């Protein structure tokens, strides 16, 4: 039973969440973030203008940050500058060296996800693997995936619970993980007053973390509760930071912006499977190119009775569920 997650060398749940080290980091991280903001405000209040702000490396970055253009308006040079700034910020704040890339949609590829509800046992391995992969805040805790435990014989999401504990699967429950459905008619995108979120050619809905004003309209608009807001400065232990980052996906976020599942675009746009899929001990999760008739998702669509969640809303999700 080599693949049994109970015996693998991955960190246990306790190691992931209860750590004295982390507590120290939470405090240090929050203080540092506050200091940076104060520093910026003082500099602005000094009214010394752009010249003064540009006088030190750190202040230059702040100036750049507050005059940052929308992602879609960046040219190659701007993008390089942005990447350099993001990398420098990570070094500053966390003391880690990260590599930020910006993989673009692959031609002829449209992603879709399929999840077998007969197999999912609600173990939450996917939730934690996602957090590790996507550098989501550990405190306040942000998980893109929410696993609902639903009474067998019903389809009642309203009566489901997501805070179950203990041994799974419970004999009278089935489990339905919910994450961003990358809808083809995304209500979240239409709700955004500043166009900080949009749908890319391969179907993935992304957020420009520099453009988001944190109004949370999109979070309210999403019928799948898939968007997460950084109420606090995200904290994450430097040793746990995934250094392979994407500009529109798992790069380290600031406080006050929205974030969401991006089908791990920094992985999937270079051909790899999403992190949640690879960790699933039951193989419930399947991912692939909807436009390729031999892909796994297409085989599932052809041979299983699939359904989408809240179909009546007309969101056209790219996330299919099925029982088999």
């Amino acid at each position, binding site marked *: *039973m*080599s*693949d049994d*997650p*109970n015996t693998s060398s991955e960190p246990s*749940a306790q190691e*992931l*969440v209860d750590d004295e080290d982390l507590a120290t980091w939470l405090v240090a991280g929050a203080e540092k973030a506050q200091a940076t903001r104060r520093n910026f405000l003082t500099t602005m209040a000094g009214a010394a203008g752009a010249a003064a702000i540009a006088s030190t490396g750190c202040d230059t970055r702040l100036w750049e940050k507050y005059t940052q253009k929308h992602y879609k308006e960046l040219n190659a040079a701007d993008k390089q500058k942005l990447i350099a700034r993001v990398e420098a910020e990570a070094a500053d704040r966390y003391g880690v060296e990260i590599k930020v890339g910006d993989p673009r949609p692959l031609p002829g590829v449209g992603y879709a996800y*399929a999840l077998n509800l007969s197999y999912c*046992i*609600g*173990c*939450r*391995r996917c*939730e*934690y693997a996602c957090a590790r992969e996507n550098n989501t805040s550990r405190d*306040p*805790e*942000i*998980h893109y995936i929410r696993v609902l435990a639903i009474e067998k014989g019903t389809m009642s999401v309203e009566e489901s619970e*997501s*805070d*179950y*504990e*203990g*041994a*799974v*699967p419970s004999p009278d429950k089935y489990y339905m993980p919910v994450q961003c459905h990358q809808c083809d008619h995304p209500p979240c995108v239409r709700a955004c007053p500043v166009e900080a979120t949009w749908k890319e050619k391969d179907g993935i809905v992304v957020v420009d973390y520099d453009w988001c004003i944190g109004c949370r309209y999109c979070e309210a608009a999403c019928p799948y509760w898939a968007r*997460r807001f950084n*109420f*606090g400065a995200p904290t994450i232990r430097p040793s746990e930071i995934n250094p392979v980052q994407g500009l529109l996906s798992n790069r380290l976020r600031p406080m006050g912006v929205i974030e969401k599942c991006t089908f791990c675009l920094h992985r*999937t746009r270079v*051909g*790899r*499977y999403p992190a949640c*899929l*690879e960790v*699933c*001990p*039951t*193989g419930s999760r*399947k*991912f*692939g*190119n909807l436009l390729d008739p*031999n*892909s*796994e998702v297409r*085989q*599932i669509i*052809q*041979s*299983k009775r699939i359904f989408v969640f809240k179909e009546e809303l007309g969101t056209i999700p790219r996330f299919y569920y099925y029982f*088999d």
Partner: protein
Amino acid sequence: MGLWAAIVLLFALPVVASCGGGGEPAHAQGGEHAGEPSVPDADIVIPPRTTQLATYPCVEQCHADRVANPTPRPLREFHSAKHIEHGDTTFWCNFCHNFDNLNTLHLLDGRTATFDEAYRLCGECHGDKRRDWALGIHGLQTGFWNGEKTRRSCTACHDPHAPRRPRFQALPAPHPRTGVQ
């Protein structure tokens, strides 16, 4: 008469169409396992099982001079930890293990399969799972959705002697913040 022909056609057509559709991808057929569902593509790696079995090769390690006994009975001396919870009470070792060469398994028609090819044996009863597995939609697959993948054979996840998987401990429920605190 014409009406009946039309009705019959109406029902027959979708059936014919759906027969051609599902099943195995065309590029993965034939080869040494002709007549069985497809063997995996070239870019699919199946991690070997034999290297992980402590007592393999069975013949060289024990069974060169120890004849396997095909009579069902409680095992006290050897394999006493083995616990068969598979196929009710009808299974005994020789249902799957090849008693003529214990380093291999045998299929129903007398051909043999290695321990690394357990999917050929399991698929003889669990044809639906075998077909899904060949399409990449049953079991865990990791690697590249558009390239080389690692596909687990049946026995990587299921203990063939007791294939129902044990319950897991769920990881703790997260404690998200839902407002400014």
